[in-house]
């Protein structure tokens, strides 16, 4: 069966510091991968998606970037965090044009 991992689970970082969040998927190959952010309140916003190694598309211009160095690894990064980057970051995968499955999330607080 497929599983999706995210780490760290929680993170507190000062403004201006770098960021690296990691997501890995097990039990499948060539998945579509997604990064979402859930800010205070309830809405989820798609940040990045990837259909293959090195293929990244951005939905919203921002202070963040994403990379996919391996088939089942997706990384979310920032060179300098802003206060507005605080939120709950969720990684998801799908086998293609079907349902998406979400990881446990990383709660980021920028101070």
């Amino acid at each position, binding site marked *: 069966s497929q599983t999706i991992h995210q780490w760290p689970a929680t993170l507190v970082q000062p403004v201006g510091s770098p960021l690296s969040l990691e997501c890995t998927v097990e039990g499948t190959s060539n998945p*579509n991968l*997604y990064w979402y952010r*859930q800010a205070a*309140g*309830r*809405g*989820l*916003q*798609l940040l990045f*998606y990837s*259909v293959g190694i090195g293929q990244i*598309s951005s*939905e919203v211009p921002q202070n963040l970037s994403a990379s996919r160095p391996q088939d089942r690894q997706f990384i979310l990064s920032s060179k300098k965090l802003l206060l507005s980057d605080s939120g*709950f970051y*969720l990684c*998801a995968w*799908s086998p*293609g*044009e*079907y*349902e*998406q*499955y*979400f990881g*446990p*999330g990383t*709660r980021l607080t920028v101070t």
Partner: protein
Amino acid sequence: GIQVEQSPPDLILQEGANSTLRCNFSDSVNNLQWFHQNPWGQLINLFYIPSGTKQNGRLSATTVATERYSLLYISSSQTTDSGVYFCAVELGRGSTLGRLYFGRGTQLTVWP
């Protein structure tokens, strides 16, 4: 972009009551999913239901794609049903690569 509207935004129930959550969307969709976000933030897949009706225990869902809405029914609610329920859709045209657009959710609170 596509608009996804969920109602009601908040719902408070006594344990054992039934409820109906609604999701309206503004464009043709390929896929529609219902999720439950638990208190720890995990999004739990409830239904993948681009059309038709499905049931899973006390939960069932119906999507009428031609009329652009979906309903989630919760019967005999339990305190463990508390949390936020999300509807998410994928556009029905072009190469959307599975991008999901989420509604703002319904916050359900079930009291014992």
